[in-house]
């Protein structure tokens, strides 16, 4: 009889092995031998996803009840602390069974909670979730949040990811400001609130995409990576200068992505030639822009001029708005400005109109360190003309390589 090596591994190593398996495979090990009987039951991380159960039944009720059964059983047989609980199954609806599981978890010191409701209505989070004071990571998909009045915030929460969620305005503001350790915040497709007032002193990473009226940061000086997409082009709000207001609270920004119509939002109000406080740390910038909108182009240029250490730039033209040619922006002047650090530029989706060419010309003539510029037009129409123009532009960098990609 050979020695049973694997069963004699230290407990934490066995845990590590089991945690690499899907919950189904892990539970299955309990029939192996007496030593394996309850090894799985102390696993601190429970993940119920498509892996844990994939029966090819199209019937909702079957799938639902099986899933409920599995989670029930596992939670009942489980023994010991649960640090991570993830529930994300493509056939999962917001059923009341989840309330019971969350109640169970809220009595443990759960640290990581991930719930993704793939189907049906928003699932209303039970109030017991808001008492999980050990939470470090919270991720919700298709949920409705309505914390009880006694909710005092998540004191340990570092990472919050909310997608397809509904929150009232005051709930949202209270939630963000009462998580003092929050470092990462992701918000996608939300409703119930339209003013984003972000007050999070430790926030470093912020990714947002949705419809909102206004955004402002307050005491969020650690922010380094920001990606903002505004999905609605109707701009109602106008401060004296959205641009100044936005950047004044982002002194440490390193990466910035301006997506969808957010540049349009920034272009509202006064656009200075340069920001009063340059973004010294910004080394990556991605902007989606309508080149026919003079204000947007000026806003983009203002950001560029205020980013002396920018190394990588990505410009995505919004194709749907390229049609009407308005006043041609004249941007060739600009005497005292150059992008010294700029090495890589990508310009995608252009159609070869004058403002685009001016913009490219400007970049080529003011970037002495440029190594590579990749240009990819939206369509093949006028490809040759575009190429001819590109060839003619003077380049400040002797190393610059222009790569033309077929659409």
């Amino acid at each position, binding site marked *: 009889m050979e020695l049973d090596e*694997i069963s004699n591994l230290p407990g934490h190593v066995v845990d*590590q092995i089991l945690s*690499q398996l899907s919950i189904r495979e892990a539970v299955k090990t309990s029939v192996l031998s007496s030593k394996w009987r309850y090894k799985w039951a102390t696993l601190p991380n429970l993940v119920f996803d498509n892996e844990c159960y994939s029966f090819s039944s199209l019937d909702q009720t079957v799938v639902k009840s099986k899933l*409920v059964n599995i989670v029930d059983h596992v939670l009942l047989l489980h023994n010991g602390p649960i640090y991570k609980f993830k529930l994300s199954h493509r056939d999962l609806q917001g059923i009341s069974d989840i309330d019971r599981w969350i109640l169970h978890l809220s009595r443990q010191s759960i640290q990581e909670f991930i719930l993704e409701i793939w189907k049906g209505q928003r699932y209303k989070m039970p109030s017991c979730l808001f008492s999980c004071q050990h939470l470090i990571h919270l991720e919700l998909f298709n949920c409705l949040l309505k914390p009880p009045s006694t909710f005092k915030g998540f004191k340990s929460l570092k990472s919050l990811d909310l997608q397809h969620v509904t929150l009232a305005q005051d709930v949202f503001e209270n939630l963000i400001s009462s998580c003092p350790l929050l470092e990462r915040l992701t918000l996608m497709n939300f409703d119930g609130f339209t003013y984003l007032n972000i007050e999070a002193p430790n926030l470093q990473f912020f990714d947002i995409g949705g419809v909102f009226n206004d955004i402002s940061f307050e005491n969020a000086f650690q922010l380094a990576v920001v990606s903002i997409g505004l999905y609605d082009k109707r701009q109602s709000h106008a401060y004296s200068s959205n641009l100044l207001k936005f950047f004044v609270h982002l002194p440490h920004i390193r990466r910035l992505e301006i997506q969808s119509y957010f540049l349009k939002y920034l272009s509202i109000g006064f656009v200075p030639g340069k920001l009063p406080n340059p973004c010294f740390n910004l080394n990556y910038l991605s902007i989606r822009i309508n080149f026919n909108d003079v204000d947007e182009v000026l806003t983009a240029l203002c950001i560029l001029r205020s980013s002396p250490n920018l190394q990588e730039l990505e410009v995505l033209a919004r194709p749907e708005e390229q049609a009407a040619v308005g006043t041609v922006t004249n941007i060739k002047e600009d005497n005292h400005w150059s992008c010294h650090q700029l090495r890589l530029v990508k310009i995608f989706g252009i159609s070869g109109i004058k403002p685009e060419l001016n913009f490219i010309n400007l970049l080529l003539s003011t970037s002495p360190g440029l190594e590579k510029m990749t240009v990819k037009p939206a369509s093949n129409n006028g490809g040759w003309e575009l190429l001819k123009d590109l060839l003619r532009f003077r380049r400040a960098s002797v190393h610059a390589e222009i790569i033309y990609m077929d659409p």
Partner: protein
Amino acid sequence: MFWKALKKSLYHPNKVKSLNKGHLLFALSLPCFYWRCKVQFLINLHCPCQMSEGAMAVVKPEMKSYIWLQTADGSIQQVEEEVAMFCPMICREVIQTGTGSSKNYAISLPQRVNPAILGLILDYCRFHQVPGRSNKERKTFDEKFIRMDTKRLCELTSAADSLQLKPLVDLTSRALARIIEGKTPEEIRETFHLPDDLTEEEKLEPLRNITDDPRIRLLNRLYARKRKELKEREKLKNVEVEEERVDDRSVDDLLSFINGGDGDTKGTRTNKNKKKNRRRKDQSKDSCLNNVNGNHNEEMHDLHSACHDGEGNNGLLASASTSSKLQDSAAVTFSPKLEFDDGDMDDDLDPAMKEELDREVEDFARRLNSVWPERMQELFQGRKLVPISLNGNSSMSRYTSLDQR
């Protein structure tokens, strides 16, 4: 003794006089970087001009430094410092206790590290301690590195853990998980030489809970069969798995149990086993008649019994939950209490059919070893996949092998 003197001098720099130049030079040539630094510091402190130049000249030509390691079997070997220091446990020993600098002061490694495994671990360290390797290179090395039999892989995991070499533990435990993944319990037992020390009864308990892989469902059937034989042989009446009892309840059962609305849930049924069983059996037979044709195989039968079991509770519960209720019960296909009625069913079949079923079950046991979907195809080869609606008001339909002959 020199060693003592050196150590003392490090903590009481003023007493360094007890060391002569030769001693310090020797100390400088010691393998451990930590010592070298300390001694260099001493030299610079006490005899800045006369010593350091000469000493530096001796040390400069980059002597390879070694660390002495002793495995549990007593064998001692010397290992390049930078390789050995890659193991946190060795590194800690060197810094905290100052051992490893000579053969007499070799670091004794944990019990779990035998010489052969140490060789492997050092190969791993030797590769990964070199800075500047690309991720791809490292990945390729790792993939090749873990190609070994499972016994060795386990030993390696254990040894790496005892040396606190976390990246290697991560690598090997991932590899072990990949080996376990997708295997049947029998295969896993065979692969890792696990003792098969659970009774069939015990094996059944947890399997009941992860119902829905059809493989497991069929495996359950297989176990159920064995269990039945077992039962007949040992004339055991009620088995003692009572503590698992509660798991069998479906959600609605549990709720109705809590609400006290329905005393006749599965959980409480234990006591009324006999009476209930009779009723279920009758129902089973009835359903046989109603069925597409009487020619079903066991699996269908199992579903039936489960289904009827559900139905049994169902009438007492709110009709809104009816269909989900049924599914719930179907999910708990096998529980020892249900005494599902293989025997009765088999009795209804003609002997030829029965024989074929037996063959099929055995056949299936063999096929369990391989990946599910292909095997399923094979298993059903030459047969039609027919979704069977088991119950008028149930929306459940499953693919079941229907013998068309």
